[in-house]
């Protein structure tokens, strides 16, 4: 049974307390290595690192509201070869959900992996975070941590969270072995949820966070409101084919989205393989036939195909959009389209390992009207 315990915040320093807690995980050999964001030497961002030496956790900063990479990709690399040592991975909700999808796609394994989840208070684009941290206002982190108690998570003035975070309904991680909670918890303590036996080894204290559920609910409701507003805007934009073109026609075929996406697991994207390599005279023939052809070719085909491949598994982390040089609103597109397609099969990506991937299964008695003469 999971129990809810607390970690007393020492000297009002939440980050230090958290670092200490993580060190304890290593020292007590609860895990043998930890994947956790460390502050970059430049100090203006954080990057995930696999840490074996507890002392190196002095630089750990899981609270920094920035996510240069969805770490599910890294967990995939770490576990696809089935590690012999137990690895702990400190992840945000969207990273965990992506990981669940990757496990179903056999791109990651959960054996010898301990998923440590952390309440996500929202993230800035990498560039915004860098600006914020070097600005005079100081750390963009602590204001958020302070607001966590009431759930009032407003971005720094003049800045915005990433669009994915603004509409994220999952600030609290699921499918974890250990959850570190900040929402609805007063600043003196950090909430820790774990299996009873694990919790006992962690030297935690008893306590209560009575308003936590209430705070989370309010937060999610606000996010959903924002989400639906964005979706509605999107749907208005794509009522017809012009909308489709408006969304995608600026694609430059850089494939950054596929690189940033935690779920795009193909070794090489189909569109970068020989199938879509053409001889020069072929391009010329097309141009001849049609008068003009868009170059690079097949960007629209690429986007629609990627949508088709990914949309059922998209967890909405928004990394694609962050990576897109053409500012295509990929988060909204994938989340909005995904919502309906996923509903067709009652599928929520990242919800559970039990749910079958919609593209990997089918039923004899479903969709029976399709194919019959109308």
């Amino acid at each position, binding site marked *: 049974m999971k129990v809810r315990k607390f970690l007393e915040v020492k000297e009002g320093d939440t980050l230090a307390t958290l670092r200490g807690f993580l060190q304890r995980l290593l020292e007590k050999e609860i895990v043998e290595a930890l994947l956790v964001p460390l502050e970059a030497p430049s100090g203006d961002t954080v990057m995930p690192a696999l840490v074996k030496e507890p002392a190196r956790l002095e630089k750990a900063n899981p609270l920094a509201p920035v996510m240069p990479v969805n770490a599910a990709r890294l967990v995939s690399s770490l576990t696809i070869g089935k590690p012999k040592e137990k690895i702990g991975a400190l992840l945000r909700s969207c990273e965990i959900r992506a990981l669940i999808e990757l496990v179903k796609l056999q791109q990651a394994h959960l054996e010898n992996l301990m998923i440590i989840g952390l309440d996500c208070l929202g993230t800035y684009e990498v560039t915004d975070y860098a600006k914020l941290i070097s600005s005079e206002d100081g750390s963009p982190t602590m204001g958020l941590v302070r607001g966590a108690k009431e759930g009032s998570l407003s971005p720094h003035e003049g800045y915005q969270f990433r669009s994915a975070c603004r509409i994220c309904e999952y600030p609290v991680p699921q499918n974890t072995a250990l959850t570190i909670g900040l929402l609805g918890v007063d600043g003196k303590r950090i909430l820790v949820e774990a299996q009873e036996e694990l919790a006992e080894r962690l030297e935690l204290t008893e306590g209560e966070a009575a308003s936590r559920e209430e705070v989370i609910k309010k937060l999610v409701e606000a996010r959903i409101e924002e989400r639906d507003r964005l979706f509605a805007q999107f749907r208005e934009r794509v009522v*017809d084919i012009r909308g489709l073109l408006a969304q995608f026609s600026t694609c430059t075929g850089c494939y950054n989205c596929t690189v940033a996406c935690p779920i795009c697991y193909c070794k090489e994207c189909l569109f970068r393989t020989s199938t879509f390599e053409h001889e020069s005279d072929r391009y010329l023939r097309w141009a001849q036939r049609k008068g003009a052809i868009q170059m690079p070719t097949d960007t629209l085909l690429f986007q*629609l195909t990627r949508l088709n491949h990914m*949309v059922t598994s998209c967890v909405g982390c928004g990394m694609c959009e962050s990576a897109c040089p053409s500012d295509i609103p990929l988060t909204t597109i994938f989340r909005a389209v995904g919502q309906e397609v996923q509903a067709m099969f009652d599928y929520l990506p990242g919800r559970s390992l039990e749910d079958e991937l919609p593209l990997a299964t*089918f039923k004899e008695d479903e969709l*029976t009207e399709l194919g019959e*003469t109308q």
Partner: protein
Amino acid sequence: MNEDFEPKIVAFLCNWCAYVGADLAGTSRIQYPPNVRIIRMMCSGAVDPVYVIKPLLDGADGVLIGGCHPGDCHYQEGNYKARRRVAILKNILRQMGFDEERIWLRWISASEGQVFAETVTAMVKALKEKGPNPLKELWGT
């Protein structure tokens, strides 16, 4: 309806039922409009969504996928796979503002030459009502 407009249809037909049905329409000399171009597949379950999107982006006005009736698949379940894929694809395209009714999935058995001809005829009619694929003009295809 634009009577002069002749829609272009690409059809993916399974080797065992629909393609044979199309052949039967021929042997039975059942006439239908010449707007359809048939590509033979081994199974409707082998029709990749890319194959459907590609012609539409290239300016085809409709895509027809023909498979065996439920339960009749030569490969047991290929047509069910096709059905789910087409359902997902149609849903996505519709949400992206593309007219999903340009994609038809139909079960046509080897003995249904007439059904094949009727399907093509009906599809041509429906596409004439819709007019040309707007991508043709807008996307320069």
